[in-house]
C-alpha cells in the first residue's frame, strides 16, 4: 500500500515526534519538561511542513513557535513557580475530559476524515499537481491588492495591540 521510501519514513518519524510530544505536554508533572515536549511536538510539525513543500512555513514555525513562544512559555513557567510543587496534575473532571478527547478524535476520524478523504472517498494519495506555489508567491499574495493585503494589515495591527497589551499587563507597577 505505502511504498517504503525516504518520504514515508520521514513522515512516520515526524508523526512520532508530534504525537509523543503532544502526549508529553498534557501529562508531564514538571512543566519545564512539558515545555520541552511542546518543542519536540512543534519540531514534528515543522518537519511535516517541509514534507508538504512549504519550507517557509517550516522555518517560520521554528522561528516563531520554538524560538519565541516556547521560550516565552518557559519564562512564564519559571516566573510563576509556586513554592510547593504541583500536587495534583489533573482536575476533578479529568475522566470526562478524556472521554471528550477520545470522542472528538473518533468523531473526526470516522465521521469526517475517513469517509470523505479516506479509502472510500476522494483519497488523494498523490497531490493534485506538483505545480507548487513558492515563497515568492506567498510574498506577492500578502501584499497584492486583490489578495491578502487587508488581512495582512489587520494582522500587523493585531500584533501591535497584543505587544502593547502584554507589556502593559505584565508591567511591574510597584516600581513606578
Amino acid at each position, binding site marked *: 500500500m505505502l511504498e517504503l521510501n525516504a518520504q514515508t519514513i520521514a513522515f512516520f518519524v515526524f508523526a512520532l515526534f508530534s504525537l509523543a510530544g503532544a502526549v508529553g505536554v498534557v501529562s508531564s508533572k514538571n512543566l*519545564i519538561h512539558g515545555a*520541552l515536549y511542546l518543542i519536540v511536538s512543534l519540531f514534528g510539525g515543522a518537519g511535516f511542513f517541509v514534507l508538504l513543500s512549504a519550507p*517557509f512555513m517550516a*522555518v517560520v514555525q521554528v*522561528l516563531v513557535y520554538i524560538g519565541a513562544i516556547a*521560550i516565552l512559555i*518557559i519564562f512564564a513557567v519559571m516566573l510563576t513557580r509556586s513554592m510547593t510543587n504541583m500536587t495534583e496534575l489533573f482536575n476533578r473532571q479529568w475522566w470526562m475530559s478524556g472521554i471528550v478527547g477520545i470522542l472528538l478524535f473518533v468523531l473526526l476520524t470516522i465521521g469526517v476524515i475517513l469517509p470523505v478523504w479516506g479509502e472510500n472517498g476522494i483519497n488523494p494519495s498523490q497531490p493534485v499537481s506538483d505545480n507548487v506555489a513558492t515563497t515568492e508567491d506567498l510574498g506577492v499574495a500578502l501584499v497584492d491588492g486583490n489578495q491578502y493585503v487587508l488581512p495582512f494589515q489587520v494582522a500587523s495591527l493585531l500584533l501591535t495591540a497584543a505587544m502593547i497589551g502584554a507589556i502593559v499587563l505584565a508591567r511591574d507597577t510597584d516600581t513606578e
Partner: protein
Amino acid sequence: MEQQCINVIETMALCLTSSGVDPGLAQFISIFIGVILVAIFPLVLVIILIWLERKIAARVQDRIGPNRVGPFGLFQNIADAVKLIIKEDITPAGADRLIYNLAPIIATLSTTLMWAVIPFSPVHIGVDLSIGVLYFTAIGSIGTLAIMMAGWSSNNKYALLGAFRVVAQLVSYEIPMVLALLVPVMIAGTLSMQGIVVAQLGMWFIVPAFLSAVIFYISNLAETGRAPFDLIEAESELVAGYNIEYSGMKFGLFMANEFMHAFTANLLFAVIFLGGWSGPGATQLPVLGFVYLFIKTLIVYIPSLILRATVPRVRIDQMMSFNWKFLVPVAIVNVIMVAFLIQVTKAVGLAPAPGETDFLAHLPQSVILLLGNLVVIAGILTYLRGIGRKARLESTVVAKAHDVPQVAAH
C-alpha cells in the same frame, strides 16, 4: 552561470556507482560523508580559532600569549581539550539530568547546523535551501533555547539569573539582525544563500547596504556574546553565568560553541555582505572560492577579536536600551529607505537586470543606495549630537537642587 566542475559529493557518488554500488545507496553514502565533512570542519576549526583569539588578545595586551606547547603555542588547545576531557564530570545535586546533559549538545547543534547553508564555492554548498537566510535565523534561535535549558537545569540561582539575562539579550538582538538581513534580500531578490552570493558578482552588498552591514555586525556581536556585549560570560559579575555548574568536556563544548558561533556569524557576514566566494577566478576554480571566503571571514573576524580585548563591557540595561531605543528604529528606517530607493531606481531604469555581473551595471543603483545610507547615518549622527549636547548642558548645571526633593520624598 555555467558550472564546469561538479562538486566533491557528486564525484564520490559517481565513483561508487561505477564501481558497482547501487546508485541510491551510493548517493546516500556520498551525501552522508559530505554531511560528516561539513559538520566536523567547524569543530576542528575551533582549535585554531581559540589559538588565534588568545594570541591576538595577548598581543593587544602587550604580552605574548601561549607559546610553549608546540610552535607558537599552536597545540595549546589540544592540551586544553585533553585537560577538559580528563576532568571529573560532576552533575550538581538536584539538577535535571536529561536537560543538563542535553543543553551543550543542542547549543553545538544549532551552530553546526548553520554550516549547512553556507555556499563555499559555486558548486559546493551543503543544501541550497530556497529560504537559506531565514533558516539561519531560525537555527540561531534554537541556541537561545539551549542556554535557557542550561541555566535552569543547573539548579542554581546564579545560573538561572544569568540564563534570564542572556536569553533577554539574545532574543532582543535577533530583531535588528533580521531587519538588517531584509536589505540584502531585497536587493538580491531571493532568500537563498547561493542566490545572494551570485547577486553580489556585480557589486558586494556592503556598498549599497552599508548601514545594514553595520547593524548586522553589531547584532552579531550581541548574538554571539562577544565584546562589548559579553554579559553572557561575565566572569567577574555573575560567577560565570549559565555555565557555572558545568565542568569537564560539557563546559568545553560550551566554550567551543561560543567561538564557533562567533566564527559562523562572521562567515555569514562575509557571505551576505562581502560577496562570499566571489573573487577573481572563483567560478573556474572552485577551490579558490573556499580560500576567498575564509580570507574575507578572517578580515571581519579579527577586528571582533581586537574589539574583545579593547572595549569595556556594556551593562544589561544599557544594552537593552541601545537595542530597543536605537538599533531597532534605525533598522526599520533603513529597511523603509532601501525599499523606497530600490523601487525608485527600478522605475527610473537605473537598476541592473537580475543576473547581471558587470560591475558598471550595478554602479548607479549601488551609489544611490549608498548615498541613501549615508543620509540616514548623517541624520542619526546629528540626532545623537543633539542629544549629547543636551546631556552635556544638563550635567554642567549644578545638580544639587535636584537631589534634595528626591531625598525628602523617600
